[in-house]
């Protein structure tokens, strides 16, 4: 099958509703949500462990968007060479 080239690549902006998930991590920019000491975890105040834990929220959102927006072009090549392309 033909490899993708400019003739069968999309030209405009592609929007997928899943991309909205990328806004969720921005909640960490609203200090009143976490600007307190209680409840503590292992003696660490909430302000610190909550923001540390938020790393996983960010990662989850990006992974979901990555998975749900994998497009057909990747599918076309998947059979032949995807495993070779890893790492």
């Amino acid at each position, binding site marked *: 099958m033909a490899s993708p080239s400019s003739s069968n690549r999309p030209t405009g902006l592609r929007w997928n509703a899943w991309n909205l998930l*990328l806004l*969720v991590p921005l909640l960490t920019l609203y200090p009143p949500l976490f600007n307190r000491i209680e409840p503590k975890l292992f*003696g660490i105040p909430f302000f610190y462990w909550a923001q540390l834990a938020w790393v996983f929220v960010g990662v989850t959102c990006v992974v979901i968007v*990555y998975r749900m927006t994998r497009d057909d072009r990747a599918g076309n090549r998947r059979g032949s060479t995807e495993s070779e392309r890893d790492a």
Partner: protein
Amino acid sequence: MTSGLQWTELAIFTALFLLVTVLGFVAARWKAGHTLDHLDEWGLGGRKFGAWITWFLLGGDLYTAYTFVAVPALIFGAGAMGFFAMPYAVIAYPIVLLPALRLWSVSRMHGFVTSADYVRGRFGSPTLALAIAITGLVATMPYIALQLVGLEAVLRTMGLNGSGILGHLPLLVAFVILALYTYQSGLRAPALIAFVKDVLIYIVIFAAVFYLPSKLGGWEAIFGDAAEALSQTNPATGKPSGSLVLAEPSQLQYATLALGSALALFLYPHALTAIFAARGRKVIKRNMAALPAYSFLLGLLALLGFVALSAGIEPITNAATGRPDSNTVVPVLFGQEFPSWFAGIAFAAIGIGALVPAAVMSIAAANLWTRNVYKEYLKRDATPAQEAKQAKLASLVVKFGAVAFILFIDPQFSIDLQLIGGVLILQTLPAVALSLYTRWFHRIGLIAGWAVGIFWGIAMLYSIPNPATGKEHFGGSALALDQLSIFGWRPFAGEETMVYPGFVALVANLLIAVIVTLIVRAMKVPAGQDVTTGSDYHADEGDEDLRAIAAKH
């Protein structure tokens, strides 16, 4: 700890340093292309780094030695405010994911090596491209100098704390060696060394975060001690130096500093260089998901600032400047609380942690100089081999310029410059990032917006004093809204709430860009030529029509 030479630590530090030196020279032959005499190969490692290499490279490049010493130092000095690095390092990746993919694709299609190359192609405006290039250069140079500051903090903690120029000798030796293997191997050198750096850093920080609290009575006690230490009134300001949570006026500053820093992160040339070196879009997607592991690590490291407060750490007085260096807080903590052999590993992690970003930053700056000043204005017919030669020389000049800064000028100056640099690079956002989605902005509007953002940003930073250190200008990154004045009009007079000036400057930048674009379009001034097409922004590895790497263009 005595102030004499710490022999065990020095021995281990030197051994690990020699290891990465060997790697730096050997890197020239790793994943080699047919030549290193092309910017694609020297400056971008052949544009074929896979996901793992990119993860180590970007991790080593973005999380610098300066970050490792300065973030805990900020926590040590001010408490909660220093933790802004956490939200910053978390939101940067979701924000950058989509634009970075488009920028990679269009750059791969057209052989762009720098962000200014892209801007030149997108808007057909050499002036706008030059503005972007100069901003990138000015923002990167002090950042390299600061890696030296981080490396010196570690060297002085190990007892190499001489005064005068000779006091900087170990630093000079380290840097000459770095300069040599970067000259020879280009981007492959820091990519390979990053493996060592990052493995060491993960080991050290995880060990520290479990071992130190158990040695010092647990986190409850540590935060208790820290809260008490921070609430002591600072004699210079008459106020407590910090607190465990954010005071009311600091909350907007925290959010805008985090957001501004996140937006700026991937506008920095050294971040984009690592992005352009990737083999394909999948590499970037995976890294946007996996790089936050380093952010978690950074958060843990930040907590060590509180551990230092609790352990009663005193920063070392830098014998060359005569002042206490708060950046030594973490090295001193490690030296005091870890057994010598592990402290040596920890120092090596931080020290090597200076080499990777310094190398990538100098390569990124060299690429900018070569493509967007040398080739654009000085030698238009430069061949790829001449470009590569010029870039190699430029990277030497840049590194030795950074050393000269540290030797002859107060390191505080470099810290000030880096603060300014952060505000400056943020002003390239409309031209470099927004342009990936729309060409609505006119090149003249973008230049106008950039100029306003730059000048007002610097003016605002100039107006910030720091009573704690006695500085009258460039005293910090927090501007009281009360002080915000637009040609004398103070919209927020009396407001104590603080804000990050870089963010304010960006808003002004965008407003001016919009207004000037509308005016210029109404006057029917022609927009420049756009060499890119819509489909370019979706190109990926394996596509038929990709440009050959290291092409003779």
